[in-house]
């Protein structure tokens, strides 16, 4: 079969488009001070930021799993008035500017926020500008990815397996843990990974709601941004680390979830 001739204009525009993505990555690779890589990575501030980032993003993923899977289950399985509106509200952060999310979080959980003032008065709990605040900001922004992925998984699974389990005497909880969850395993995994990657890269909501205190709320993306003004080389290296993580996530998801392309 003769190959179809691709219009030159399309090729040119596509090439520019591809270069737009590839050049910055190339820049990061070429201009990174490889000689200082080890010392930059081993610097205490870097280690601290990296540790905080991992703890916060994994915690956010954990919270998202605990709260997001039930939400997804309700969206997929329960019909009630206002379901569409509720789903839209809980997935709004996917399209909301993260800074706006951070401000919204402050207005709800800040010291003078809707719930925050009560938490402060009654229990002396303050959430903003703490590590817990970082986890909240990251969960807020990242959980929708998990909700939508898991909901899609629940909708596409064959529910008759659940019926078969019930005829075998399985309680609802046993059906859920032994049949439903394993059957939506791939969706659950993909949702959790997407959620974690999004949490790891979170910047806007975090800096707005949790601030930028080294060791407490300064995550990797915040450190990268700050280092850009004080120690460019180190910020390049940290960027490279984040890039590497993203790449691993993408490749991992490609084979497991997105199918081969």
């Amino acid at each position, binding site marked *: 079969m003769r190959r179809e001739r691709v219009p030159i204009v399309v090729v040119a525009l596509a090439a520019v488009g591809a270069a737009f993505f590839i050049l910055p990555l190339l820049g990061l690779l070429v201009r990174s001070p490889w000689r200082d890589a080890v010392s930059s990575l081993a610097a205490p501030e870097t280690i601290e930021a990296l540790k905080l980032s991992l703890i916060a993003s994994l915690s956010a993923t954990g919270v998202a799993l605990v709260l997001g899977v039930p939400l997804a289950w309700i969206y997929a399985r329960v019909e009630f008035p206002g379901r569409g509106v509720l789903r839209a509200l809980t997935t709004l952060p996917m399209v909301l500017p993260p800074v706006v999310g951070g401000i919204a979080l402050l207005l709800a959980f800040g010291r003078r926020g809707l719930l925050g003032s009560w938490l402060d008065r009654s229990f002396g709990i303050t959430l903003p500008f703490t590590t817990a605040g970082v986890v909240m900001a990251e969960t807020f922004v990242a959980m929708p990815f998990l909700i939508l992925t898991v909901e899609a998984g629940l909708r596409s699974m064959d529910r*008759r397996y659940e019926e*078969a389990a*019930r*005829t*075998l*005497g*399985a309680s609802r909880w046993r059906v859920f843990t032994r049949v439903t969850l*394993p*059957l939506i395993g791939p969706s659950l995994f993909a949702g959790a990974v997407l959620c974690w990657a999004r949490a790891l890269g979170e910047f806007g909501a975090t800096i707005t709601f949790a601030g930028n205190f080294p060791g407490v709320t300064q995550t990797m993306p915040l450190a990268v941004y700050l280092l850009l003004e004080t120690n460019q080389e180190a910020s390049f290296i940290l960027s490279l680390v984040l890039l590497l993580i993203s790449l691993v996530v993408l490749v991992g998801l490609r084979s497991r979830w997105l199918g081969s392309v």
Partner: protein
Amino acid sequence: MSLDVALSVRLGALELDVEVTIGEGEVVALLGPNGAGKTTLLRAIAGLAPLGSGHVGLDGQVLEDTATGDYVPTEQRPIGFVFQDYLLFPHLSVLDNVAFGLRSRGTRPRVATEKSLEWLDRVGMRSYAHAKPAELSGGQRQRVALARALAPAPRLLLLDEPLAALDITTRADVRRDLKQHLASFEGIRLVVTHDPLEAMALADRLIIMETGRLVQTGTPAEITQRPRSPYVADLVGVNLLRGEADHGSVRIPGGPVVAAAGAESGDVFAVIHPRAVSVHRRRPDGSPRNVWQGRASGIEVIGDRVRIRIDGEVRVVAEVTPAALKELDLGEGGEVWLSFKATEVGVYPA
């Protein structure tokens, strides 16, 4: 032990309205065309389809009664269910599939494993204990599904088209095995099928269902000899007429008067086996009391027999040998005479 069901369920356009009692240890086949509501009935008995109204009772225990609001959830009903495509859990091994019911009902892991291995032994699948369902053939899956349903010792076993997912070459073997395994189970067995051969091979009693209603019940012999609806007559391959009996004859409304030796009076069915119908090109003379003229509207060869559909005042199917067909020199659309004896007409009250 008995199953006692009277229920109505609405599912889309289908209105299921069924009353049935099944006695201790019976193997009953629920036979009917696609869309008759057979599967829905099974699901209602298992508690998977909500009842519109009615009740389901097993061994005197009320499983569901819409009048009193009693409802035992599916997972607490002593019912085993073999689904049409078996629905073995794809993420569990064969052994864990069989052990699932025992574990769900609180059996300790070691005991559950032992018992499951025994069950796999019984159905000849022990060597596949650690295989995943995807590695099994259709017949093997069916055996595992049966072991899985029976392992928790249910009192009622429901099977939904247990052979439909198999290809035709293995079906006969699997059916024989299934009959054997069903025989070793002591509770009530209810098999849904649309295949009369399967129903008669597996069951002591048939229940025929059409468009949400039971139309006939009886042993395979009773059903074959005395079909009570065109669908059943078609299933067992006989000619069924209905009319008014009058001492030696049956008057078919808008049709002929059939001479029938056993006819007395009242609304009756008259059944004529196709083999009892002779086909001629010229008007036959001699003893047969029933002689009609018609046109051969369909000629179908089935194995070593030929079924000729003859449209006259009523439609009748005759069955002849291929040699006889050749001798008749008959093609579709040909004019024929058919005849059968008055003593060949079975008559019973409608």
